[in-house]
Each structure stands twice: as structure tokens, then as C-alpha cells.
């Protein structure tokens, strides 16, 4: 074989990429569910628990006031199952209607901090929700796990191989902060990012858009792995306590993400025929408010425009790893911020370095939320701040 030349860098799922006749269908998000622990830990409380005194203002540095923390008896599996059940509670379907279940969390804790390698966690999730006939396995792709699952389901549904499936993740990762609290000594610590983590479960039911419906659904999905940066963020079982420890070259990973995201975003937008300002809501991966602001500023400078809203959901939840996009989207739906017909772009930036986009037009999903009886427990939380971004901000 000879080396081929492709017009696009990202591995894409859009109308121009499909072989003729191979993708007769469109996929959409039918429902979303979350599971949020009730226990909260503020950044100030976390800082006070550190063994050493790094002299940092964590809240100012990251924009995170507090994060949810799994209580006794909660783990990755229980969060995933709760989120899956919440998703089905908002859905027209039950577990028996699912053709596929993908568990996409990094943490796979069951029975405390037992990290399960096999059987896959998806086996227990599908068993718990009665999806006995669903094809199931686990996906591991760092914080891009859930969007990788969406990418996979989008492919299966568009080809007509399945009608619907569930992407689910339960992240019980606040323990990384506990382990980091024993070793972080300064702002330069490679475990500093562990102090941003919070626990959450999320699930999204992806299904085929009914025939004859010409609006709504996933317009485009694309991913790539910039593997020259694959070793910038590594997580292993910890040497200092139960759970894991994560070592991140935060400045470097943010720098390369900010440099590499704009050309890839331009590539993705070219394939969709959209301009950046056509995006109503950009939901980037939630690491820190400062990183989001810098990244969006660079995207704005490179693309010459801004989406109408950029979502920053960090203040109350921190970085919930693979679930961040869906925790944020679920909250915006519950609060009635998003309307049918609006375009939402989910942007994944994860260790690997994984960069991915999922672009969808909102449809019936909006009508399933907004009752104010939020299952995941947002409670009396303030409005999520929408970062004012340049002249296009409304």
C-alpha cells in the first residue's frame, strides 16, 4: 500500500465521509441522565486537608468552588447505574429496548476502591438496568470516553446495525485528590490537577431519528489522537492510598491543546458547512475556568468568531472527567436554557491527546427536561455562568 492523502485530519462521521448507501439514518440524543453525590467538598476544605502548604488559591486558579464527593457505598458502578436509570426515567424506552451498552469511565471501582479490569463494568450495568439483550463492552479513552462511546453508537445507528444504545460512565475520582493531598507541595506539583476532580455519573441514550423527521440529531462527529503528547497525563493505582494517582504536565497539555484545537475545529466546521458563530452552545471539556477562557480566546482569534455561549460548569462540580459534557448539558436542559433547533457542540480535550467534536441540533430532547425536579441534585445552586466571549456574546 502507499501512503494516502486525505483532505481531513480527523476521523469523521459526516455525510461526506460515508460510503454511498452505507449511512441511511441519523442518530440523536433521546435522553440524558446524571447521578450526583449529595456530599460536597469545597476547594478551601480540600486545601486545608493538604499535608503540606502549597500557598495556592485553588478556587481562583481553577474556578472551582466545590465538587461532589461519593459517600460511603457509592462507587463508579453505583454512579453509572444511577445515571443510567435517570436516563431511562427521562426516556420513552426501558433497558430491554437497548441494543448496546457502552461503559466509558476511567475509574471502574466496584465495592469501594476495587478497580475492575474484568469482567467489564458494562456487564454489571446492563444487568442492573435490564438490558439483557444488549451488546456490551467497556471503552477506555480517558476524559474522552463518553464522547468516544457516542462516536461508536453514531456509527452503528447510522449504518442501521442497531436502533439505540446507551453510553454511560460513573466516575468516582475524588479519591485522587485525597491521594494528591499527601504529596502536593507547590503549584508546580504534577498532581495539582487531581485537586480539581469531582465525582459524577452520566448517561446518554442515543437512538435513530424516526424516518421522515428531517430536523435534529447528530450532524457530525470526529476524533483524532495527537499521540506525540500521549504521556503528558498518566494515571495509575496509587502508591500512597486506595484508588489512583494522576500525574499531569498541566501547563504543557493546556498549551498543546490550545495550539492544536483551532486547526482541527476549522477542519470540522469546514466539513459541516457551518461557521463558528453558528454554534449556539459550545461545551468544552471542563478542566479549569482559566483553561476554558484561554482556549476559547485562541479559538476566537484563529476562527475570527465566537459561539453564542460557552459553557463553564466548573464552579459547583469541578472536573468530573469523562462525564463533564453530559453533566453540563443535563444542567442546561434542566434549567431550560437550550431550545429546540439550537446547535450544541461538545468539544473533547483529553489525555492521549484526544481531540474530538460532536455537533448536534437540539430536538425533542429539550422537552424531556426543565421540570425543575432535577434527579441529580442541583438543589439551590446558582446559575451556571456563561463566559462572556467577545463581540458575538449575547
Amino acid at each position: 500500500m502507499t501512503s494516502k492523502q486525505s483532505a481531513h485530519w480527523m476521523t469523521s462521521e459526516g455525510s461526506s465521509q460515508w460510503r454511498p448507501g452505507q449511512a441511511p439514518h441519523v442518530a440523536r440524543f433521546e435522553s440524558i441522565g446524571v447521578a450526583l453525590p449529595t456530599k460536597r467538598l469545597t476547594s478551601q476544605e480540600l486545601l486545608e486537608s493538604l499535608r503540606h502548604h502549597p500557598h495556592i488559591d485553588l478556587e481562583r486558579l481553577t474556578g472551582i468552588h466545590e465538587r461532589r464527593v461519593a459517600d460511603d457505598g457509592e462507587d463508579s458502578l453505583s454512579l453509572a447505574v444511577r445515571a443510567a436509570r435517570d436516563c431511562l426515567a427521562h426516556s420513552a424506552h426501558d433497558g430491554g429496548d437497548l441494543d448496546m451498552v457502552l461503559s466509558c469511565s476511567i475509574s471502574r471501582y466496584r465495592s469501594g476502591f476495587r478497580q475492575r479490569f474484568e469482567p467489564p463494568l458494562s456487564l454489571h450495568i446492563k444487568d442492573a438496568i435490564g438490558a439483557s439483550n444488549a451488546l456490551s463492552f467497556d471503552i477506555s479513552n480517558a476524559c474522552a470516553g463518553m464522547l468516544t462511546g457516542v462516536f461508536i453508537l453514531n456509527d452503528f445507528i447510522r449504518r442501521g446495525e442497531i436502533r439505540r444504545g446507551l453510553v454511560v460512565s460513573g466516575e468516582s475520582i475524588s479519591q485522587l485528590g485525597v491521594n494528591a493531598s499527601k504529596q502536593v507541595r507547590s503549584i508546580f506539583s504534577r498532581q495539582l490537577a487531581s485537586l480539581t476532580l469531582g465525582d459524577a455519573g452520566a448517561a446518554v441514550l442515543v437512538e435513530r431519528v424516526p424516518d421522515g423527521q428531517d430536523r435534529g440529531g447528530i450532524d457530525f462527529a470526529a476524533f483524532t489522537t495527537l499521540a506525540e503528547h500521549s504521556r503528558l497525563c498518566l494515571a495509575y493505582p496509587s502508591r500512597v492510598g486506595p484508588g489512583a494517582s494522576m500525574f499531569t504536565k498541566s501547563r504543557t497539555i493546556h498549551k498543546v491543546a490550545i495550539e492544536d484545537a483551532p486547526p482541527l475545529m476549522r477542519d470540522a466546521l469546514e466539513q459541516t458547512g457551518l461557521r463558528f458563530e453558528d454554534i449556539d452552545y459550545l461545551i468544552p471539556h471542563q478542566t479549569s475556568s482559566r483553561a476554558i477562557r484561554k482556549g476559547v480566546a485562541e479559538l476566537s482569534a484563529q476562527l475570527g468568531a465566537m459561539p453564542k455561549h460557552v459553557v463553564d460548569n466548573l464552579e459547583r462540580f469541578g472536573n468530573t472527567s469523562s462525564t463533564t459534557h453530559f453533566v453540563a448539558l443535563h444542567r442546561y436542559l434542566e434549567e431550560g436554557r437550550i431550545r429546540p433547533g439550537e446547535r450544541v457542540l461538545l468539544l473533547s480535550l483529553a489525555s492521549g491527546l484526544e481531540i474530538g467534536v460532536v455537533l448536534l441540533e437540539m430536538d425533542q430532547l429539550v422537552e424531556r427536561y426543565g421540570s425543575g425536579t432535577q434527579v441529580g441534585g442541583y438543589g439551590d445552586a446558582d446559575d451556571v455562568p456563561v463566559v462572556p466571549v467577545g463581540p458575538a456574546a449575547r
Partner: protein
Amino acid sequence: MSPLSRSALRLADTAAERCLRRGASEAAELDILINAGIYRDKNLGEPALAALIQEDIHANLGHPPGVGHGTFSFDVGNGACGVLSALQLLRGFLSSGAGELGMVVASDASPQPWPRGLIPQQRFPYRAAGGAVLVGWDDKVPGLTAFRSRTFPEYASLCEGWTEWRRRPRLFPSSPGGRNELRIVRRPGYEARAVDCAVDVIEDLFYEVDLSAGDVDLLVASLSADFGDALAGRIGLPEGRVVNVPEQFAGSHTAQIIAGLEQAERSGRLADSRTCLLVSAGSGITATAALYQQ
């Protein structure tokens, strides 16, 4: 493949590079790279091992603006069935046109690459091994035509692998007082139940595609050295159609099905077969069967 190394990442790298050479392909041609191995160096949880493999084999590492294409890498976890699950995903991506060339890599080795026995509690039950399969698209060949998979959660406790914190005496005041250790348990009756489950899945597959055992020219099966023969006896496969996994890969884990495929390919039996049945069974119990036709 190289069973000599004790590092799962090195095994995966070596297998991927050799696979590319045998396929006369370059790493830069890969659109999608999926790792299906489970047990890896230091029990790495993040990033996907596939990303590290991609970097090590130099598959489209960065983003040169304007030209070329990238590689998308991620891991699939489905025990011993992971390779077949990954092949099912790749078949979909290639058939739809999301990619043109993909690779599935699988390797397992002790997470602590120290001499066996130095740390008895971390003795690793699987033979270190790696494998890789290059998958392209050809409109003229049926290729991977059907997949069937089922889980049997009633047997979930028969085969398990996990890490957990085990308390240890503090030798020094600053010692952590324990460590995370890998535990892998295969309980009595596991392999016999796995055969039962795999037979059920094969029968489902045969029913769906209207096939019988007599139509199968070759059976490549992975769980243990005896697994293929046990399945052949149960489904009534004519004699001489089972591919035995090479001795150096007996006792390996996720890569075993690839070792069987390679053996079939090297011996020329795969080229001579019209219908090849691929079967894996592993923890869950999960059993997967697939047809490769040409």
C-alpha cells in the same frame, strides 16, 4: 508477536510494527487503532494504552496543518472477547467509510515487569504475549460478515481481575501502610461453563446466518489450549478443522485469538478456507463468535 518481553506496551508495540511490515503498510496509513489488551504496565488507567502504542509506532503523531490525516486511538475492554469486539467496531468504521485502514492490538503482561516470584502476591497467571491484526476494506471480499455476542452474568464471579489496596506493616513511619495489588481469580468450573456459553452463542450465530457446523472450514478459538477441541466436539465440527494455538501463546490472554489467526494464516489454512469461525470466551462470562468469509 514477541512473548519474550514482559512489558505489555512493548509487546503491543512489537506486534503492531511486525503486523504493519507483514501487511506492507505504514503506520501513517492507520485511521483507527484499537487496543483490546487488559493487563498492562503499572495497571495504567489513563490515557488509553492505544495512544501510547500510536506514539511508539509513529502513527500520525501530530497535526501538520493542511495535509495528511490523523489516527484515532482508544481501548476496548471486554476480557478475552475484546479483540473480536474491536474487530466488530473496525468493521463498522471501515464499511461506513469513517476509515480505510485500522488495527487491533492486544497484549497482556504482569503490571510489574520484575522477575516472577520476587513479589509472590503479584504472580501473574497469564503468559505475556501480544498480537496485532491489520484490517482494511475490500468491496470484493465478504470478510468479517457476522458477529454474535452474549453475556452470562450468572457466571460473573468465575473469572475476575481487579486492583485493590492491601494493608501492609509499616516498615518506616513514612511508609504508606499498604499498596494497590492486582488480583486475578479464576474459579473452578470457569472453563467448562465458558464452553457451554460459547456453544450457545455459536448456535445463535448459525441460526441467524443459516449455517451449520459442516459449512465451517476452520475454527479459531481462544480461552485455553483445549477450548477449540472442546467446542468442535460439542457443535459437531468435522475433524481437522480446529486451529491449535502455538505453544508459546498457550496460556496467553487477549492476544490468543490473534495467535490462532496468525497460525492459520502462516500455515496457509486460512487462505484455503471459505468460512472461518472465530470464537472467544472470557470473563463475564462473555462469549463472542464471528465469521470471516472469503
